[in-house]
């Protein structure tokens, strides 16, 4: 194991003849080809799979930083209509009936449910948790009445949002953000729909879209993440409750950031969001998703699916700030299990960009991916994942190059503190048809304290000799030298740590829309970098 001093890369010499034995089985490089133009460049490759970096220095003050209390742990007292726990075909039908869905969708759910029953929960992620009893979970919860306007929203819910700092009112217009808030499973308020409708943009809850735009749903639902895709996606396909739907017509640039805040509120209720975003040819949209959840004793399952369709020359930017309850600091009890499938498919010359800041959840299992189907399409993944307390994250991305001249960029920043375990797992796949594909990956890990771990599992599959794939990786530890330097200039240790972490994540934060960047930095306990400098 090699750990460089902060900021320094441990470098292997970049060479196409890199002895592959240095890497390990976690990387498979197939048919790199003898063509001299083919190059697989591994810069700063650090010990790869199974590389558990457990620090041994003790830094008590840093651990204190990592042990902050979760601020959003409160429960809203709202009457709920909830299904009894358990899952079978009748429950699937009941969910569908509850939402007054057309028969084809009921059948689609059932097909997914039947397939799910044949599947096994994945065991390959580097996370550990007690087996989930899927029959002990309730699959539907909704606030009792459906509302037409914000005025009718339960004041208690609005108060909850205020506590979370979510401005769900017309003032948001000034910030240029339309909000489709999801409270548990049902969307309770949608703003700005009219303004967006002028441009032909559809932004509504998934349930509404099923009623009002069935042709679009039928065409695109499951087109990126099929119901057979994986265990959690299949489960979601069977029981998804609600989510958001966005359609941007040809040539339209969405005039505002679209935003959805998710929360999980009801006890023992899984939340199964389904989001579908379609950007038609030459369309552009930026979508923000943010999450917080109240404190609960029992683990709460969240298995969402997000599908992005970027048609030719379209551009979709999808940003996430995730701050679900991470569980008890000491025992890990009570945190959210976040098993999410996010994927986008790119048409010709289109672009999909994922940016995520993951600070919450007991377990995060999430690989926002891009299928680069169209020629000259672009995929991006920018990620900050923080694990503290007993949190575990296994997250990364998949970039699948099918089209010619496709390119992808991966920037991943993992921060481990407390007893957190942070794994980056990413696949870069270049198929035979993808001439001149390019990828650049950078995976950096930062360790705070002595009991955390950082792991990297990069998979690279190259089947086209013209591909150019680069992978850089660093591991650093917040150094005593850095802290002391800050102290000597008058900064407290806490401020020093947040400043250093903020600096570490800067490349990702700058990809976030401004107000999200603010929230992200707050979440990391970092003050916003000032307007100077």
């Amino acid at each position, binding site marked *: 194991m090699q750990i460089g001093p902060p900021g320094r890369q441990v470098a292997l010499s970049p060479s196409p003849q890199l002895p592959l034995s240095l890497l390990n089985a976690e990387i498979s490089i197939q048919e790199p080809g003898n063509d001299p133009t083919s190059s697989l460049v591994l810069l700063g490759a650090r010990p790869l799979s199974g590389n558990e970096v457990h620090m041994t220095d003790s830094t008590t003050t840093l651990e204190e930083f990592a042990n902050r209390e979760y601020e959003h742990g409160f429960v809203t007292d709202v009457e709920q209509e909830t299904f009894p726990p358990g899952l079978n075909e009748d429950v699937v039908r009941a969910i569908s009936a509850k939402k007054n869905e057309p028969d084809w969708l009921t059948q689609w759910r059932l097909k997914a449910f039947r397939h799910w029953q044949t599947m096994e929960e994945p065991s390959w992620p580097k996370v550990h948790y007690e087996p989930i009893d899927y029959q002990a979970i309730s699959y539907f919860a909704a606030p009792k009445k459906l509302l037409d306007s914000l005025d009718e929203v339960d004041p208690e819910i609005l108060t909850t949002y205020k506590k979370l700092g979510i401005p769900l009112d017309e003032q948001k217009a000034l910030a240029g953000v339309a909000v489709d808030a999801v409270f548990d499973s049902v969307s309770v308020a949608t703003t700005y729909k009219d303004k967006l409708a002028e441009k032909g943009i559809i932004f509504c809850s998934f349930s509404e879209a099923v009623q009002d735009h069935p042709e679009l749903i039928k065409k695109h639902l499951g087109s990126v993440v099929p119901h057979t895709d994986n265990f959690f996606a299949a489960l979601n396909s069977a029981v998804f409750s609600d989510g958001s739907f966005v359609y941007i017509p040809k040539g339209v640039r969405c005039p505002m950031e679209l935003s959805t805040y998710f929360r999980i509120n009801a006890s023992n209720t899984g939340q199964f969001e389904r989001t579908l975003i379609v950007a038609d040819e030459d369309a552009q949209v930026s979508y923000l998703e943010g999450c917080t959840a109240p404190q609960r004793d029992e683990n709460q399952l969240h298995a969402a699916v997000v599908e992005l369709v970027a048609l030719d020359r379209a551009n979709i930017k999808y940003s996430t700030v995730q701050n679900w309850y991470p569980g008890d600091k000491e025992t890990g009890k009570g945190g959210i299990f976040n098993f999410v499938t996010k994927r986008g498919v790119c048409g010709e010359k289109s672009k999909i960009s994922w940016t995520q800041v993951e600070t919450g959840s007991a377990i995060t299992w999430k690989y926002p991916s891009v299928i680069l189907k169209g020629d000259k399409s672009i995929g991006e993944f920018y990620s900050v994942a923080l694990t503290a307390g007993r949190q575990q994250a296994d997250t990364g991305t998949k970039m699948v190059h099918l089209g010619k001249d496709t390119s992808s960029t991966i920037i991943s920043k993992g921060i481990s503190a407390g007893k957190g375990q942070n794994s980056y797992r990413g696949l870069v796949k270049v198929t035979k048809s993808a001439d001149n594909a390019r990828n650049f990956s950078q995976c950096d890990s930062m360790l705070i304290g002595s009991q955390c771990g950082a792991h990297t599992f990069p998979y690279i599959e190259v089947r086209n000799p013209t591909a150019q794939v680069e992978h850089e990786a660093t591991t650093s530890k917040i150094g005593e030298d850095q802290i002391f330097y800050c102290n000597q200039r*008058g900064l407290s240790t806490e401020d020093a740590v947040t400043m250093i972490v903020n600096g570490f994540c800067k490349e990702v934060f700058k990809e976030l829309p401004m107000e999200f960047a603010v929230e992200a930095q707050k979440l990391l306990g970092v003050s916003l970098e000032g307007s*100077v*400098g």
Partner: protein
Amino acid sequence: MLELNNLHVAIGGNEILKGIDLKINAGEVHAIMGPNGSGKSTLASVLAGREEYEVTSGEVLFQGENLLELDAETRAREGLFLAFQYPVEIPGVGNTYFLRTALNAVREHRGQAPLDAMDFLQLVKEKADVVKLDPSLLKRAVNEGFSGGEKKRNEIFHMAVLEPKLAILDETDSGLDIDALRIVSEGVNSLRDSERSFIVITHYQRLLDHIIPDFVHVLKDGRIVESGGRELALELEARGYDWLDSKAAVETAR
């Protein structure tokens, strides 16, 4: 300003400083010279509040207060500044932002209102001129990718902005070429006044051609073995540190 009485310091059970007595008044510049391993940098680190050093006996008074009871950030806020021998890189943290946060922490400690962005920018421009700091370094991350000379100049720039009461320069001349040495020295000299004291730690007399000290002390094996005026530095340059050994031997023989 600063008073060291019989200061003993150890690290990992090894005694590095073996009884240092030193008194520095406001406005004075004291040079501390000595061979490698004599304890010069340890002295700087202990005064700045590095925790891995253990003070085994003795006391340090800073403006009449017991310095050793204060943590590093409080010492800094009270006006003690250390220009590091090896300035630390902080990737991704803008130099100007870092300094503004630091200055406002110091100002808050003094009961002053924080400087707003405009006023701070003005201050930064002034001070950058003083040490002839390349303005592009203001926009970059703290020390990241700076050359050795740029790092040292950046330290003096930090000092100029923070306006400490006591500045300790730990081998600020090491790694500087002649021109950089002159510029850094001019920066230091411009900050000299009757209220501000300096401890200049160096191997070489050449720095003291530019920063003229009031007193020169020679540290050897954890003790101050000789103190004098500026002429002591010149003598050391001419005769080397071994000269002190033979001198001490002669004195012992008497």
